[in-house]
């Protein structure tokens, strides 16, 4: 169980809700609520904003495709024993 209460999308201000829409497009999936990590990052937009931009830059297709990078991300998460 999370150690914090994850706020519903409606509890966030408008700029965060716009970011949730972008997040939905990024994942191409219609979550009932934005992904937990998106809501965590929206808590502090001065951290979450640049962190998210760095992630999207890192995940953009280059020498490796977005899909290949998702696999790298999954492997990194796996060896970090991250259940999320």
């Amino acid at each position, binding site marked *: *169980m*999370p*150690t*914090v209460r*994850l706020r519903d999308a409606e509890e966030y201000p408008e700029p965060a809700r716009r970011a949730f829409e972008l997040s939905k497009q990024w*994942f191409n*999936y219609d*979550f009932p609520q934005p*992904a*937990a*990590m998106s809501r*965590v990052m929206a808590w502090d937009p001065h951290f979450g904003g640049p*962190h998210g931009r*760095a*992630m999207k*830059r*890192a*995940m953009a297709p*280059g*020498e*490796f495709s977005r*899909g*290949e*990078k*998702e*696999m*790298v*991300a*999954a*492997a*990194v*998460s*796996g*060896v*970090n024993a*991250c*259940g*999320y």
Partner: protein
Amino acid sequence: MVGDALWYEAAMVVGITNALNVVADALGPLMSPAKPGPDVAAIYDEIRAFYATGGEVPVPFGLAAQDPGYLGDLWAAVKRAFSDNHLSRRVKTALAFAVSLTTRSAFGTAFHLGELRRLGVGEGGIMEVVGVTQMFSSYTKIADTLQLEPDMGGIAPVDHSPAPASEPRER
């Protein structure tokens, strides 16, 4: 990256990479590689050819060669895991590099970095893997600290294809 076959392969690369790294990092500085006798010469030749090394055999194989039977099986698994299949060797090496970096393996990081370069991945491509590794080393720790529960596990389609060399089952 649709279909379970890719992910089974990725998992095997991650596992065997870690297996090589733990031994190389811990014992590489403490033990000497076995002298290649006739029973390991053919395996050593295969290893050298696979990695296009001049004469050196990577540390974990040299250590495993104390028991030629063990080396043979270990090498067969490594070769299978890293050979082109559903995933390319290039992508598998990128996975191994990311895993090595994440687990702070000095052997694995240097070895797979060298392999990526040898396989034609440029510095930009290497930094792409570094960037993904770095960002997800952040996300995972944020998620763990807050004990977030998975909410994206079900977004991928289920692969109902049968296990290799078997018939499809009725669903």
